[in-house]
């Protein structure tokens, strides 16, 4: 049995007087023990909401959560709040996008690490301090004893994210969710942090859900990849098949829009035309259809079903792209003038 089985997860934000927002709309994927699973998609497709729903961190009011999320067979979405609170930080942990705002500014790093140790492992005093220093050391923070006494504003960006990682892995969780952990950092630091995460999960046997809009990150890290679009997983596959033969036109578009070193000089990137604002509701057909170079009238006959191939590839498309077509589709995708910058370089500005 998989460690985490997410089935038809749906999150709807409902404010009085406004139309409900279906931020996540039937997301299913599984994570096996120790596996690294990527959740990829452009900004606003529901990646963060999915992870917050799994952690039980969404607001209680004005939010409706449906579906199932079985962790070790127990449904995270229906379990009592106190049980979930016991699991958070010990069985499952999370790291966030912006390390500065994610750390409490008026409390020393040390206490922010030891409070987890105390809560879940009952450690106090000097042993807790020592363990905290060891943790900082493990995540590559030099001179950990001194750093424990410092405040978040005294650390560099990369160091802060390392500290947050230390807090997250302090109790050796079985599942770690990383929500765009590197987007707020500069490129060299990004690579170091990814390397650190990769090492840690391998050492501890922790399963990792890596949330990103950067396929480059996924390529170097993930065993399984789920591509999300407008609140649904539109394609799921192991890394190799996904990169070698993407099936959903959106995945094909995403791949076509990342810069490649081996591309001929001067070749243009191929952004996906249009923007999420062009989406139609899933109930009316494929949400991606208006931006899709591959669409036919069939695409507008209700939501496309999830198709499972015998190789473990799953996609939600009535007109999947076949191997030799990949090139053609990425070429076709460049035809209309893009109104919006492409998905992969799109707004991190919200940080």
């Amino acid at each position, binding site marked *: 049995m998989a460690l985490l089985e997410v089935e038809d997860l749906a999150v709807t934000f409902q404010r009085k007087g406004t139309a409900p927002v279906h931020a996540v709309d039937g997301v299913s994927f599984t994570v096996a023990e120790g596996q690294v699973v990527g959740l990829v998609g452009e900004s606003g497709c529901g990646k963060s909401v999915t992870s917050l729903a799994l*952690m039980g*961190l969404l607001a209680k009011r004005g939010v409706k959560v449906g579906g199932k999320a079985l962790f070790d067979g127990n449904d995270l979405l229906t379990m009592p709040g106190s049980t979930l*609170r*016991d*699991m*958070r*930080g*010990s069985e499952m*942990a*999370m790291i*966030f996008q*912006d390390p500065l*705002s*994610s*750390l*409490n*500014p*008026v*409390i*020393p790093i040390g206490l922010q690490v030891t*409070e*987890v140790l105390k*809560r*879940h492992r009952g450690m106090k005093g000097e042993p807790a301090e020592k363990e905290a220093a060891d943790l900082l050391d493990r995540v590559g923070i030099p001179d950990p004893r001194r750093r424990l006494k410092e*405040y978040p*504003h005294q650390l560099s960006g990369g160091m802060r994210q390392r500290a*947050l990682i230390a*807090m*997250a892995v302090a109790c050796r969780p079985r599942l770690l969710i990383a929500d765009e952990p590197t987007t707020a950092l500069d490129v060299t630091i990004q690579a170091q942090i990814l390397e650190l995460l990769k090492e840690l999960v391998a050492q501890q046997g922790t399963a990792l859900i890596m949330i990103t809009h950067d396929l480059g990150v996924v390529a170097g890290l993930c065993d399984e990849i789920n591509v999300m679009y407008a609140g649904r997983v539109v394609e799921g596959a192991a890394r190799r098949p996904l990169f070698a033969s993407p099936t959903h036109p959106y995945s094909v578009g995403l791949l076509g829009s990342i810069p490649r070193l081996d591309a001929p000089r001067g070749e243009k990137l191929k952004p996906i035309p249009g923007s999420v604002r062009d989406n139609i509701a899933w109930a009316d057909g494929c949400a991606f259809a208006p931006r899709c170079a591959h669409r036919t009238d069939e695409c507008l006959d209700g939501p496309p079903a999830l198709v499972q191939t015998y190789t473990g590839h799953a996609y939600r498309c009535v007109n999947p792209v076949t191997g030799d077509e990949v090139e053609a589709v990425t070429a076709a995708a460049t035809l209309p003038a893009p109104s919006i910058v492409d998905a992969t370089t799109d707004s991190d500005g919200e940080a």
Partner: protein
Amino acid sequence: MLRYIVRRLLQLVPTLFGLSILLFAWLHSLPGGPEAAMLDVRATDAKRAEVRAALGLDEPLIVQYGRFMKRLVRFDLGDSFTTGTPVMEEFGRRFPATVELTVVAMIIAICAGIPLGYLAARRHGRIFDGLTVTGSLLGICIPIFFLGFILKAIFAVKLGWFPSLGRQDVDVNATRVTEFYVLDGILTQEWDASLNALWHLILPAIALASIPFAIIVRMTRASVLEVLGEDYVRTAEAKGLRENTVRGRHVLRNAMLPVVTSIGLLTGGLLSGAVLTETVFVFGGIGSFLATAISNRDYPVLMGFIMIIAVIYVLINLAVDLSYSVLDPRVRVR
């Protein structure tokens, strides 16, 4: 840190100098003079001039001001026109009453205001929140004077639950140690004297607390609402910390930062609010003495008291700034 304190105290000198000039000019431009309060309305002009001369008010203003400053550098504020006692002594005798009143009022405002503001924020958008916001608006609008009279009329006069005036019943035998009546009772272990003094403090303190209470409620509420949406609170929740830890260590601690600053400013403001409250409850503090001094044009008392209050105000805010730098490590005083 020490250098910071010294610098702030040195800044006090020009501030006080400016204040003294403004005050002096303002007081002497007020119509009427101390002789009007001392003499009968039918007194002759010659008699008036005689009294003015005796008080040294016939000399040019610049000379009078020079004399004031000369005394001031020796920490002498002159004698009261009405009582003839040195202003310092008058202040020393009355200030403890006002401090007691201000402290109790501030304790009431803080102890009621912070929890209420916090609860309102947690119940954001519900009835309790709405009631708190409206109620606190009322607290700001009602004049202290009026609230004092209402409280006195209902709880002292009609219901008789509280005394209506004074600091302590005369028949309580109390030994004086510090002029802080509540503290004296504790020091001498005369518990009933202490309680009696506290009892006299309740109504005036509530009247005085109304404005700071309302402001603290609103500031706490706004601040907690903001902090609840912060990423680090989500991180704390993601760590699975107990609700009380999240609330205390991560939410309240951060939410208190702006509230602490406002508490400093409000405490200074209370000293002026005390003028009204003390008058209503015939409370022998500096407030009621100042009120009489104004109508008597008792220049030395007015100059002296206001200057001392200014110094205290600055000291309170210095203390707040220092405590702020302890509470928020990002702010380091230099």
